[in-house]
């Protein structure tokens, strides 16, 4: 059987595309890095892919707001290709800047088309600055996300961002996400309790680190799973007993298994 195909989407300022492609390849995908222009021009069709991965970076320099200009670019230039991709149950992953892009396209976690219907966003960290650090994360039980199926309840990953604070407009929006199993990842303290800064690196509502759409097929997260594929990526591999495989690999394996079953 042919390998499922992953499209690693690039635009001006994308910068985690190589290691993201490597992560997809390691999980079994046939990855291809593709610039938005090639899809917009019709040279490449999303229809030929099982998995759309919007990697981290600084698309358009985070100008105006992180992810905003690329989100607009996808909305205006790809037409309904993204919607069609979603409707066919294909997988979409946004990591860091990719998450910022996804949330600003209105595809997830709430679906909207009119800008002023926006009910969720990612904004400036409470610390007021970009920070790179490792965090402890709890995988929310009973979430509907395809990418975290069967995953161990507690994982560690690095974050590296300036605008990762997750906000929703009203408490009812948060209830909706929780009731639908759309909250996927939360920052926790080292011992698994309520995190304070910097355990929660940005001050997100509900300490949320990752959310998905209602079907669980579109997933966005601020931490970087592609940066923890091997134990030697871990900051304490020289002092702790760790499995050979890093906690990030399971996200891509889940995606692969789902796509292989398509």
């Amino acid at each position: 059987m042919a390998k499922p195909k992953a499209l690693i989407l690039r635009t001006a300022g994308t910068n985690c595309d190589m290691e993201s492609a490597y992560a997809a390849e390691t999980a079994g995908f046939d990855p291809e890095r593709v610039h938005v222009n090639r899809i917009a021009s019709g040279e490449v069709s999303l229809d030929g892919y099982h998995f759309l991965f919007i990697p981290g970076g600084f698309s358009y320099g985070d100008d105006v707001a992180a992810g905003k200009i690329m989100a607009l670019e996808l909305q205006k230039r790809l037409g309904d290709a993204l919607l069609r991709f979603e409707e066919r149950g294909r997988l979409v992953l946004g990591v860091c800047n990719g998450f910022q892009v996804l949330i600003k396209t209105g595809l997830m976690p709430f679906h909207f088309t009119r800008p002023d219907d926006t009910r969720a966003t990612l904004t400036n960290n409470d610390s007021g600055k970009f920070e790179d650090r490792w965090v402890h994360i709890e995988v929310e039980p009973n979430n509907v996300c395809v990418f975290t199926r069967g995953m161990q309840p507690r994982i560690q990953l690095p974050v590296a961002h300036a605008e990762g604070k997750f906000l929703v407009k009203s408490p009812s929006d948060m209830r909706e996400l929780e009731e639908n199993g759309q909250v996927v990842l939360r920052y926790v303290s080292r011992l698994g309790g309520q995190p304070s800064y910097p355990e929660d690196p940005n001050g997100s509502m509900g300490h949320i680190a990752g959310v998905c759409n209602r079907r669980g097929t579109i997933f966005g997260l601020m931490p970087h799973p592609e940066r923890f594929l091997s134990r030697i990526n871990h900051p304490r591999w020289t002092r702790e007993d760790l499995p050979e495989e890093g906690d990030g690999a399971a996200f891509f394996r889940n995606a692969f298994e789902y796509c292989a079953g398509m």
Partner: protein
Amino acid sequence: MVRRITVVPRSGLADSRGEGVRHDARDLGVDSITDVRVDDVYLFEGEDIPDTDILRIAEELLTDHVTQEALIDELSLDEGRVVEVAYHHGVMDPVEESIMKALGDMGITSVSAAKTMRRYVIEGDVTPEQLALVTDKLLVNKIIQRVAAPDEDPFLHARPVEGVTRVEVALLGLSDDELLQLSRDRFLSLNLDEMRAIQDHYRSLDRNPTDVELETFAQTWSEHCVHKTFRGIINFNGETIDNLLKQTIVRATRELNHDWCVSVFEDNAGVIRFDDEDNVCFKVETHNFPSSLEPYGGAGTGIGGVIRDILGTGLGAKPIANTDVFCFAPPNMKLNELPPGTLHPRRIMKGVVSGVRDYGNRMGIPTVNGSVFYDRNYVGNPIVYCGTVGIMPKECSFKKVSDGDKIVVVGGRTGRDGIHGATLSSTEVTEESETTSSHAVQIGNAIQEKKMLDTLIAARDRGLYTAVTDCGAGGLSSAVGEMGEETGAVVDLETVPLKYAGLRYWEIWISEAQERMVLAVPPEKVDELLAVFASENVEATVIGTFTGSGKLTLRYRGVVVGEFDGNFLHKGVPRLERTATWSPKQNPEPDFPCPSDLGGPLKSILGAWNVCSKEWIVRQYDHEVQGGSVVKPLTGAANDGPSDASVIRPKLKSMRGLVIANGINPKYGVIDPYRMALSNIDEALRNVTATGGDITRTALLDNFSWGNTTIPDRLGDLVRAAQGCYDGAIGFGAPFISGKDSLRNEFIYGDKVIRIPPTLLISAVSVMEDVSKAVTMDLKRPGSLLAVVGLTRNELGGSHYFELHGALGNTVPGVDLQTARATMTALHAAMDDRLILACHDCSEGGLGVALAEMAFAGGIGAHVDLNTVPAESAMRDDYLLFSESNSRFVIEVTPENAARVAEILSGVPFAWIGETAETGRLVIDGPRGTLVSENLGDLKEAWQQPLRTV
């Protein structure tokens, strides 16, 4: 018409930008501000922008509907005090480009130009004087910004240059005084000999030079571009040195003649072999001058520039790591201690750190290694070193320009930015620099450079060009000049794409606008090459041809405006002849008794600016992008101990890696630059060794930032340091592969001169076969043994311990090269057998600081006996603990491995000194009882507190 959208944060949400201003205002003594709100203002120009368009822009593009609201065409809406800050006309604002791109995607055509401003709404009981102070010190940098007046036209409407006016400069008849006056008036920075040489040359041609010709000489002959001092003739204490660079640094590399050195001192970076397929290259640049005036832009363009050096090495390498080393005045200097015309060191530090952060992070290059050194004499001349490592297929390591190749400029457009950067960086900074040099400061556009990087590598892999170099200092004049040195070239200056109209032809030629590269492209490949760049929205333009005539010809709209004989342009610069002197310093030695408790001094040293934790800076840099991070800059049980070096894996499918480290200690240079050079080399190699690297596969870089070397004692320091570099490189067998110098770092005000300490940065890159053998500095477990490797001597000159007692001293640590090399080789052998649990080098603060850092980084206690430390002679306890002797390490070893380690280290100074324990304390015993007994939490707090928040 001009329309305006103001985006305002919704009330009740945290505004971290505003909070930052309030915090900084308190530092200025303005504590009555109760709230600061920061709004983003966007201005749009067009013949007729309808309401529907402006509403769509506000709704769909600019407003985050969860956190913000938009106000359209409203000017004042607040009772508070309002300051609106805009960039000066002509200063590049990358956001404008992104907005225009988005408007295109949205199908909005009524807008022809966009601008951004920042609006500060300040609440509280603030006097007009206080507001002016806050505005001047925090909100506006006059070099690039202004307070916008409500009634001004925010858009620049420059008139295009009409026709061609070839301008000649009357040079032939000038007297010596007039020649010098001309050099000053036009910011040429050429000395009398050089002006005379140019005059003689044009006399022989029987004509005056044109303006662009004269400017080209100034660029090509600038210290920045040709290193006239290092390559000149120096009379040093009666001895004649013909070309210091060749006699010392380059000579060491030639004599060592390692087969893994691929290209040294030739290209934009030094190139060494990585594995059978790829080579790596490394370059470190100084970017001092603009950083003192506009720290954010200066530092950003510094990192942007060195990244382009890597893109311009061979046929272009992919950047895989950045390093940054800064020297600032201490952040706690008082405002009234600052010389006129200088920015506060805290503001410089914040600006530089965020400039490097924003550029490096956006480029997607991990910043893996760095250092900060503080000294009051950097107050007018902060030092910014930015380095980049790259990787490329080995067959892409060389370039060749052929007759008939087209000259293609790619990347950003050309503006007036950075004109005279190369010549101004070769002069002293004065209190007037703030007003005279504004045209030399630039703001970088990292995304432009990232796009260029992506497409350049794609074009390289398709074999579409045969040579590439970056537009750095001197702009096109240097890039095209260098590439066409052998072949000659014709350039049509009107074809160069401009940011805005109105540039004269000589400005186009020497502009240092960022994010541009020049390629040599065989004519049959031009179309395909242009298509590759166009496919990702990067501009690429043919501007001329490499001709084969040996002549460089500049045309503007068909008229020849400049013509050069390549030989005179590149080889005609008169050699400098300078005098240098050096004599040993005689500083007073301190006189104080040995204290009975050394815990207090230990904590003081841990909290010194030069030792304390730099986590505040490190965390702001993405050190893990590209996914190859192995040893991070911070390490240990809580990820916060100071790593000696970083290790990365540039190829994710391979376990082969690179160790990247540095050594710098200008305090030693104030006493003895020769020993400083040896110490810095030793430190860089110690850091490599301590992390598991092998000094026999290590290459070095030199970066000199010096005072004014036209003055003999400064030049003498430089000679001594260069001689130290030679001896160190030969002694360790580690070659230099690239370097850079910046030799006018003095600040002049009134009749006072502040010169920086001799500041030599040694950077190291080492190929590591198996990164799983890397070692970190944090203690790993209780019950292991601790040992000191290396000999401690009575060497406290320039030490932190002496500084604590207000003294400099004289005995700068030396390096016994034979023993040092043997020590590092033996220690590496032990690491190669995986026998070492933890290893940390002894540097600033000596053994005491090394032990403390290892213990608190690992969260593991230690108990050691100072009497057992190998020392050359009977030493005072405090000197033994805090001496900064070179070539020393502390290692942690399991009891089972102790015998094997002792055997491997049997030929070098080595002794067991104690053990680790689950006590949470560091205890150090001396001959007359316990000298240090400190809680690890207290030691860590002393180390973390100074720069926890800035």
